[in-house]
């Protein structure tokens, strides 16, 4: 029984959440739309890390699915937004 892992989890959670804070600040500040999109993308990745870290912390495998889903589809929103910025519409003819 040791407290190493819980502390590491705690530390990692703090790091990642502060990282989320940085991304969120960029999200709020802009200044340009692409900055916000990039920040949202980062936020999703960081969110995935939060999920994984929590999974380690709770020692449960069920969090893996959520992380998997973020990994698979976290990018879709950002991609669609980028495409919107680039082309003015998400789905072209």
């Amino acid at each position, binding site marked *: 029984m040791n407290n190493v892992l819980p502390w590491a989890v*705690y530390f990692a*959670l*703090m790091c*990642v*959440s*502060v990282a*989320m*804070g940085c991304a*969120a600040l960029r*999200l*709020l500040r*802009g200044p340009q*739309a692409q900055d*916000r*999109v990039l*920040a*949202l993308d980062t*936020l*999703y990745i960081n*969110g995935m890390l*939060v*999920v994984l870290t*929590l999974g380690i912390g709770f020692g449960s495998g*069920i*969090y893996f*699915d*959520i992380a*998997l*889903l*973020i990994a*698979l*589809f*976290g990018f*879709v*929103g950002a*991609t*669609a*937004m980028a*495409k*919107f*910025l*680039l*082309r*003015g*519409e*998400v*789905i*072209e*003819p």
Partner: protein
Amino acid sequence: MTLLLIILLPFAGSLCAAFLPSNARNAEAWLAGLVALATTLLTASLYPQVADGGVVRASLPWAPELGLSFSLRLDGFAWLFAMLVAAMGSLVVVYARYYMSPADPVPRFFSFFLAFMGAMLGVVLSGNLIQMTMFWELTSLASFMLIAYWHHRVDARRGARMALTVTAAGGLSLLGGVLLLGHMAGSYDLDVVLDSAAVIRSHPWYPAVLALIAFGALTKSAQFPFHFWLPHAMAAPTPVSAYLHSATMVKAGVFLLARLWPVLSGTDAWFWIVGGAGLCSLVIGAYLALFQEDMKGVLAYSTISHLGLITLLLGMNTQLALVAAVFHIVNHAAFKASLFMAAGIVDHETGTRNLKRLSGLYRAMPLTATLAFVAAASMAGVPLLNGFLSKEMFFSETVFLQRPDVQRIGLPLAATVAGMFSVAYSLRFIDEVFLGPQATDLPRAPHEPTRWMLLPSALLVLMCLLVGVFPAHTVGPFLKTATTAILGANAPAYSLAMWHGFNLPVLMSFSALAGGILLHVLLRRYPAIRAPLLGRFDGKRAFDLAQTGIMSGSERALRALSSRRLQTQLLLVVGVAVVGALYPALTAGWSWGTRPILPPHPAFVLMWVIGAACAVAAAWQAKHHRFAALILSGGAGLATSLTFVWFSAPDLALTQLTVEVVTAVLILLGLRWLPRRDERFRLGQRVPLSTRVRRARDTLIATAAGLGLAGLAYAILTRPPSDGISPFFVERALPDGGGLNVVNVILVDFRGFDTFGEITVLGIVALTVYALLRRFRPAPESVALPRQQSEQDGADGDSEERLPDPAAPLPDGYLMLPAVIVRLLLPLAMLVSLFFLLRGHNAPGGGFVGGLVLATAVILQYIVGGTVWVESRLRIHPQYWIALGLLGAGTAGGGAWLAGEPFLSSQSWHGELPLLGEIHLSTVLLFDLGVYMLVVGATVLMLVALAHQSLRSHHRKAMLARGGFV
């Protein structure tokens, strides 16, 4: 049985008449005439049964539970009235046959005519007050239809509406009064009500009842101050005026007053309300009649006046006055109907009813003139005629009235003055129309009408004469029967004779005659166009003013009480909700619970600082920076999802995340069609004060709502959970539900019906979205190619109408590598979606998440490949997916029926397969598969339908050639 027949016959006739062809004038008239005649004879045949105070009753059970039965009651008074209605009806039918022109749609006329007759008989014969009110309203309706018979004429329409408005108001008020009356008496049965006079008169509700019933009666009888509708009702064909608006319908009011006389009269309130209205109508009606130019106008005001006389008599609270009133009802009907017919004949033969234009018709139509002379004399109260008799009874009643001083002198005086007016207008009527030089500029050359048209009038005049000369032998017994029916055995003695000796009433009669002649001579000298003093009061204008007043008033009131603005509505909804929810909380003063709370984790706090900041910022930016607001709300959504992760809700997190992604794409697709915000208001303009106030108010409401929500949440969070249904689910999920993931077992099994409804919602919405987008019309400024595309593609030297090549294996340019990657992702995502679908029962996932994953993967293909490219290779029919999904889920649920179990009971099958091991199949899986398919179908349908808009808007031809989508 006969009674029933009396009522039913006219209604049956009305139905028959409605279905006769429109040119069957004779058939119609025969039908109506026979019906009326039969009714008359039937009524007459009942006389022996009522002659000695008997009462004939008939009733059909209708709704005895409500105290309603269809009951008819014929006593002497009712018999007299029914006779009046039926006989007068027969005469008017004959008259109308010749009056209506061949071009008129007669079936409608006779149909309504007979319907009216039935309704009127219903009023008279009802043995139940409620039933009487029903027939009462029917007479109003019939009158409305008859006045508006020539509905192409403005005056007919207006007159009809005016009549309906006034009489319907009266009817409703009558209903109220009758209801109260019935409540006081304990029954609506007329007999019972008539027997409880003492109770009623001493009841605290008596004034209200009296007011309501009097209002009903006075409006119907066109009594001051509700008299204005009657002159306008003269727009009706003359037979209608003769029948409804002089002889019968307007008499319904006085009929009612007489009917309820034993119950309601005898109080000061009765005297003032009924008598006062009668007196005013008597004088004012007569006075105004003097100045009318329309023959029917004179008669209309005269009717008001005469009805006023009857009302006044009823209001006098003496039994003799009641007798006089009943007598005058009959007399008035006879001479007034005859006069109306005369007016109709004149109108029919000359084409005008204007007193100014008509003159000297005596020479052209002597018979008509003679009849009119006699009738008018009766109206004026000339001796030897019936009008004289009842008027004299009236005079004597005014003289012997036991009232305080002023009233004792004032009443006879007023009566004499009114009599004077009445003589004057009768004279004028005759003088202007029939005497004097013959008019030359009439629309038609006058001549005598056919005999048949004169016959009804002649009969009525004959009656006037007979009654006038031999009152005791003609009308005497009937009058006695009628009054006995009202007053009971102790009816007063009176003598019906032409001459009672020389007394004060006779003096009054003669002074009225003399004064009337004088007045007429005077007025001929000074032909006033408009009645002095009262001429300014114009019923039509007042009605119109009242109407526009009501309309604009209610509009204004409505504007204060309601709004067409969404913001106001939402403010109210939210406001009411906040106040309603906080009120019990604040009054009961609740405290936080005692459940031990979890120590805050700084990371979680930070996460929510971010989430809250995103939410607030989204609220801030949503107006001018839609894109930023969308991204920011995505941030808030992520925080929400992570909260679900944090607090042990993996299923929620999964679902929320996938939904989040799809929603973002959806709104982005929509953003394409929202043109840039118009920033005119923003640039260089100060925000007006009102806007700032509104924003402050909204902020306040929003804060209250937020705090309320937070408070409620915290109150629950700090309370130990209640012992509810949830332990059951946890305990039974594995043994009975066969799944480890309790949430999923709840969704597909325990509460599968919720899911069932939920997927239906999704399907419905998808269909709606599709239907709406079929007719989508983008804003004009959005139709063009987005600026980015025209610039980029223009720079590449391509034409604007560049269509992607469906045969190209990979897109050109910057999308090539994304396309490669995303297409590689598709099979992976499909597998993942199947993974979530299949194992949802035991771990987070399920059909919904699986479906969304697949749908997202498909949409990704659209994003990188373009609509044309994807659909040339892959034809998904989302609509079928939706249908199959719903059917699948339904079948999974309905499968239980085969086992005789309730819908959605899960059925499972275990088996052993060689090599593969244990196999577990269950309807639950089929259900989840249905969910999966539906979600795929619905999501793809919505997104793709939206995506198709740009295709339609600039590449329609190419797409048409391809044959459209879905």
